[in-house]
């Protein structure tokens, strides 16, 4: 067997040329037949050319591939044995102690790059928010400090150790947050109309979300560096793809929000808007409107958030009011919403199911489920599949086209599953930016 051009079982061959390989060079074994003889038979000019490489090789490279047999006493050279023992020790030190450090470096590098990008997104998002607010501010008003300070605005979730009434408390906290945000926008942008105020709230929400994500990731990056914890970096690195995707989607969406373009998430309100055409539109609950229309001799109560400003309203509250107002005499509740698609599924695919199709933190969904359960009303759900970035950015053509299919499905469902004279609630759930009624 040969290693690096040398038979390791052969006895050591002394190197005749001391110019090429000084005998006292630490770690040089003199075992390398090919290299050992390189200096002896090659012309002088060639020898000189290879002197450096030769010494380098003898000192470092050969030992990297030297046979194990030599390490355990087959060599006569003390330097050789010593070097190989040191080599083994160094090898194990690297494997045992630096292995994790090298992994930390690799993960840390990814997290650092992501943090830089998140900082860039947070900064740009803040500037974008300032630019979109500027046209609605008083002349010479300096809003930068106020907006920068408001980006750190936080909401404390209600205690859930005692879960009784937690959704009512959460509902209250969310209402307070919403009121506070609206109050702030009216204060810094007094010239904004109702739609512009709603859109500016969304723009600020994005800036706040990106600022928060950046600070959290930076926190764990610094914590990981301080504690030198591989686990912190690994966990962070595993979550980064989805985190970055969401952050990029939010950032892309922000520009569209300031211009009032409909989102992918606006599919529900778009369908409701198409269905309620011709009916008298009336307000019900916070930022929600409804209209009663006739569909094949059934009374359909269509509700959606009040557009075209970017609001979601409180559709749960609206459904509860409508059900209670009719003492439960509702044949069906049909809910339309955008839903996250699984990888491999097509954007704009329309799927039917049952249950309250609404992606709120809980209170609105709870109200719908509670009202439906109380009066034993079936809830149908029709969803349109899309990616998270498609839901947050300007509506795609596929989604806009899917809205017509959903309108037809609703008409068919109402005819197939209800009798003439029945009352049906159709709730278009989602952000209604760019979609009026």
């Amino acid at each position, binding site marked *: 067997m040969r290693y690096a*051009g040398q038979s390791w079982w052969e006895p050591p061959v002394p190197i005749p040329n001391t110019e090429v390989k000084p005998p006292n060079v630490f770690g040089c074994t003199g075992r390398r037949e090919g290299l050992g003889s390189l200096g002896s038979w090659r012309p002088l000019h060639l020898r000189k050319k290879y002197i450096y490489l030769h010494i380098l090789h003898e000192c470092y*490279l050969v030992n990297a591939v030297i046979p194990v047999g030599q390490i355990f006493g087959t060599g006569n050279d003390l330097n050789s044995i010593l070097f190989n023992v040191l080599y083994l020790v160094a090898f194990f030190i690297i494997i045992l102690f630096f292995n994790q450090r090298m992994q930390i470096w690799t993960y840390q590098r990814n997290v650092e790059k992501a943090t830089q990008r998140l900082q860039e997104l947070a900064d740009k998002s803040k500037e974008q928010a300032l630019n979109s607010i500027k046209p609605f501010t008083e002349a010479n008003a300096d809003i930068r400090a106020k907006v920068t300070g408001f980006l750190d605005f936080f909401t404390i979730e209600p205690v859930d150790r005692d879960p009784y009434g937690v959704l009512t408390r959460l509902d209250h906290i969310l209402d307070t947050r919403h009121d506070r945000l609206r109050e702030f926008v009216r204060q810094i942008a007094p010239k904004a109309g109702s739609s512009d105020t709603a859109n500016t709230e969304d723009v600020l929400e994005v800036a706040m979300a990106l600022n928060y994500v950046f600070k959290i990731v930076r926190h764990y990056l610094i914590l990981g560096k301080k504690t030198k914890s591989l686990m912190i970096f690994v966990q962070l690195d595993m979550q980064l793809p989805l985190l970055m995707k969401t952050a990029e989607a939010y950032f892309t969406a922000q520009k569209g929000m300031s211009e009032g373009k409909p989102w992918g998430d606006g599919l529900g309100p778009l369908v409701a808007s198409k269905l309620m055409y011709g009916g008298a539109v009336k307000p019900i609950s916070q930022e929600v409107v409804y209209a009663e229309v006739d569909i094949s001799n059934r009374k359909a109560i269509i509700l959606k958030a009040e557009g075209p400003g970017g609001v979601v309203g409180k559709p749960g509250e609206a459904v509860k009011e409508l059900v209670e107002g009719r003492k439960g005499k509702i044949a069906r509740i049909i809910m339309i919403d955008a839903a996250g698609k699984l990888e491999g599924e097509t954007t704009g695919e329309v799927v039917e199911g049952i249950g309250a199709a609404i992606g709120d933190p809980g209170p609105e969904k709870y109200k719908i489920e509670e009202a439906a359960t109380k009066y034993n009303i079936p809830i149908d759900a029709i969803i349109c599949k899309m990616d998270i970035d498609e839901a947050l950015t300007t509506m795609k053509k596929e989604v806009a086209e899917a809205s017509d299919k959903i309108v037809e499905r609703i008409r068919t469902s109402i005819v197939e599953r209800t009798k003439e004279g029945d009352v049906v609630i159709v709730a278009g759930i989602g952000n209604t930016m760019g979609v009026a009624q």
Partner: protein
Amino acid sequence: MSKIPGKSRQPTLAIISIALTIVAFILFILATFMESLADYTTLLLTAGLGLLAVSWIIYFFGGRMAPKKEPTPEKVVTVIGCRNCDVREERDFQQGDFIPKELGPCKKCSGKSYIKAIYAVTEKKPNADGK
């Protein structure tokens, strides 16, 4: 390892890095087993190590050198329709557009024209021929 946006060159760099590693190992094998190359062992091993180093550098620093991916240009279209007829007109989105904004009488039938849809269309980047 996670994929971070803006790394369009990363797959190419990863392939180059792997290819260099394979070449380096081929050199090591040649240096080890080919007796006819015994005199060039030093060179082969040095070259192999060099290739391994370059491979590692490409892997480690490749992501940093990669230029940021340019966002795909997006065109937002406003579709105008009519309540009475099937007229359909498309134009670029203008601030203030919303569904179903009334836009006055239809050009074809004098019915009510309105904004029927607003959606984004991803524009394909023109190729070298400008097509």
